[in-house]
């Protein structure tokens, strides 16, 4: 019914290729989220699906039928636009019921659906207002309402919650998920909010510069990013990357070395230029090393800025390297050469770390990702292949 397939879809504008040879196969009833940096072609991809843009190349299939050049109205889709696009000459009720009225729904049914949507969106009191009398978030909710009253086979939503506050966003998230289940529709969703992408999607499609980078369930993208781009993009704050080279049994980086068992991780051939990635939450103060099953050797670092977030604190670390001779220089240069001798660590809010303090940190070896520096493709997602992944961890902690 609502399955959507893109084959070799390409969209070129005068001076950019917004979408480049995109292949996607979205099952009926699936919830797929498109993520990617600003300008990577997410909206354009949705537009081709909606029929608002005819792709320069490629075909689009919805429900098994080739709809590449079919007008939007024959595609049974509803869309929430990134730019909201309310009809300024209609009040909220008319905006929401527009699609239904076009389809000659009877008035009672229209009212029922609009009321229901307004309730979900908490805009019951606003149905008689004109768009220019609404706040930004209220407008966005109306835009969502306009789509959801339609109950189509496919929803296309382009950052539908961008202007909502956290609480409302959480509420909307559950409502959308409920709707998704209830109507059993396909939802293709664009967001820049990691939490949304992670919690709502069956699969996340990561795009960059018009290319699809990876499409996989959220945790796969998080834990086994296909390449440097995905690794860096998914997760906030983003993964730490340190460039290095593989030597026998060791990955050598300017700030630290990580030993590995070449037998277990045959992908790492000595001499390869690799990039080591580790997420901030997988960096621990050395005193916690005991809690980890497989910590690395302690790495000497100096805390720079501390960013308390309420439920966690981000600590910016400057690696002092093995010889740690010129710690001042390192600090001042930190900003410029960031990413190679800087590490971000996230710690619990009750940590007693302070700025400008020399400490030692360890990494969780099971959470170290290695990428080919040249191609950016992932080489491996841990350097401890022998142990089973996942379920073992809590047990491992318990041991300490």
């Amino acid at each position, binding site marked *: 019914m609502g399955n959507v397939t893109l084959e070799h879809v390409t969209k070129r504008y005068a001076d950019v290729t917004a979408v480049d040879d995109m292949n996607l196969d979205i099952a009926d009833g699936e919830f797929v989220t498109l993520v990617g940096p600003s300008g990577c072609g997410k909206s354009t991809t949705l537009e081709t699906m909606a029929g608002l843009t005819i792709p320069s190349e490629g075909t689009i299939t919805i429900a098994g039928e080739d709809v590449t050049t079919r*007008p939007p*109205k*024959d595609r049974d889709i509803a869309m929430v636009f990134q730019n909201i696009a309310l009809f300024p000459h209609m009040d909220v009720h008319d905006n929401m019921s527009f699609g239904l009225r076009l389809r*000659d729904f009877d008035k009672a049914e229209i009212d029922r659906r609009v009321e229901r949507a307004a309730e979900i969106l908490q805009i019951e009191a606003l149905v008689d207002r004109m768009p220019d009398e609404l706040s930004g978030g209220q407008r966005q909710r109306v835009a969502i309402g306009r789509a959801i009253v339609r109950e189509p086979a496919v929803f296309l939503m382009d950052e539908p919650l961008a202007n909502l506050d956290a609480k409302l966003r959480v509420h909307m998230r559950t409502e959308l998920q409920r709707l998704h289940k209830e109507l059993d529709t396909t939802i293709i969703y664009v967001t820049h909010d990691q939490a949304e992408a992670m919690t709502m999607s069956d699969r996340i499609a990561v795009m960059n510069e018009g290319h699809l980078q990876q499409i996989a369930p959220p945790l796969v993208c998080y834990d086994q990013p296909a390449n440097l781009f995905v690794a860096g993009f998914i997760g906030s704050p983003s993964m730490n990357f340190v460039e290095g080279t593989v030597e026998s049994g060791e990955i050598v980086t300017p700030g630290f070395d990580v030993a590995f068992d070449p037998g277990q991780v045959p992908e790492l051939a000595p001499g390869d230029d690799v990039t080591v990635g580790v997420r901030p939450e997988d960096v621990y103060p050395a005193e916690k090393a005991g809690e980890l099953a497989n910590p690395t050797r302690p790495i000497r670092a100096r805390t720079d800025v501390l960013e308390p977030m309420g439920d966690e604190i981000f600590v910016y670390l400057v690696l002092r390297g093995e010889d740690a001779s010129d710690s001042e220089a390192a600090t001042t240069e930190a900003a410029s050469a960031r990413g190679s001798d800087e590490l971000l660590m996230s710690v619990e809010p009750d940590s007693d770390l302070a700025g400008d303090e020399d400490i030692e940190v360890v990494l969780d070896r099971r959470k170290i990702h290695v990428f080919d520096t040249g191609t950016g493709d992932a080489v491996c997602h841990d350097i401890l292949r022998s142990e089973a992944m996942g379920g073992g961890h809590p047990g491992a902690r318990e041991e300490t």
Partner: protein
Amino acid sequence: MATSDEHGRGRVRSAAVAPANWTEQLSEQGFAYVLLVPTLLLVSTMALWPLASTFEMSLRADALFSAEYVGEFVAFENYAELLTGERNAVLGSPFLDFGQPFQSALTVTLIYVAIAVTLETIIGFGQALVLDQSFRGRRWVRVAILIPWAVPIAIQGLIFWLFFQPGIGVGTDVMQGLGVFSQNPLINTTDTLIIVIVADVWKTSAFMALLILAGLQSVDRSLYDVAKVAGASKVQQFRYITFPLVLPALLVALLFRTIQSMRVYGIIETTGGCSTLPSLTCMVVSTFRAGRYATSAAVAFITAGIVALVALVYIVKFADLEVGA
């Protein structure tokens, strides 16, 4: 009853919707052509065909003695004689004579267009800016300012003619009191030119105002907020936001206003008369009235050619806009 009614409505609706659905299948280009069918149909039968037929007339001789409109085929003789001045006697006034700019139709027309259109644009813009504000009673002020456009030319002429007609209106006395007019403004070329321009400005500023106002009202108000916060004064807001954004509407207004005033006739005829103030269209009409249909047709085509040249200025500007956008 209700259902059958609904049924009926549904049928009507689907009858209307069916072609709309069909056009959805067309490519953008195809759709554009379909949309243009009614226009082309109307325009080709009611405008292009008549013009072609008139053009054919212009290639023939006048036939003053026959019940036919025109006589034998003479190719471009009419055009040649008109442009060389051989027909000036028939035209009533020379077509182009730089020696007496106020006697020759082309120069009179151009002078009139330049002055009138400039004034109308400035005043029309001013009026539009006033009408763009919201204030109490705006509705009626709008009506008041726009209503001169609703006056038929015959009445417009009558008003000004009577006003300056000695013995009836007091206009001449007033103007002479101000030391502006001669004793007999309605037979004096410059005075009549002024009267005609004033009459025209009075009436057609409203045309400009209406179009510009529509342009002004279509400007997204939030852009003004941005401009204000960026520190724009009223003048700067006008220069950077209002003006560029109403420019397309302004150009349409200017283009059509210029074309219309290049064809000025009625207001001249109803005030000073064509022999006091000859315009291009005056010649078309007077030869037409005199039954010289071929000459008239040729003058009409020459007039159109001149208008086209003038309009070119705007078209180039339009092209600029298109490229810019």
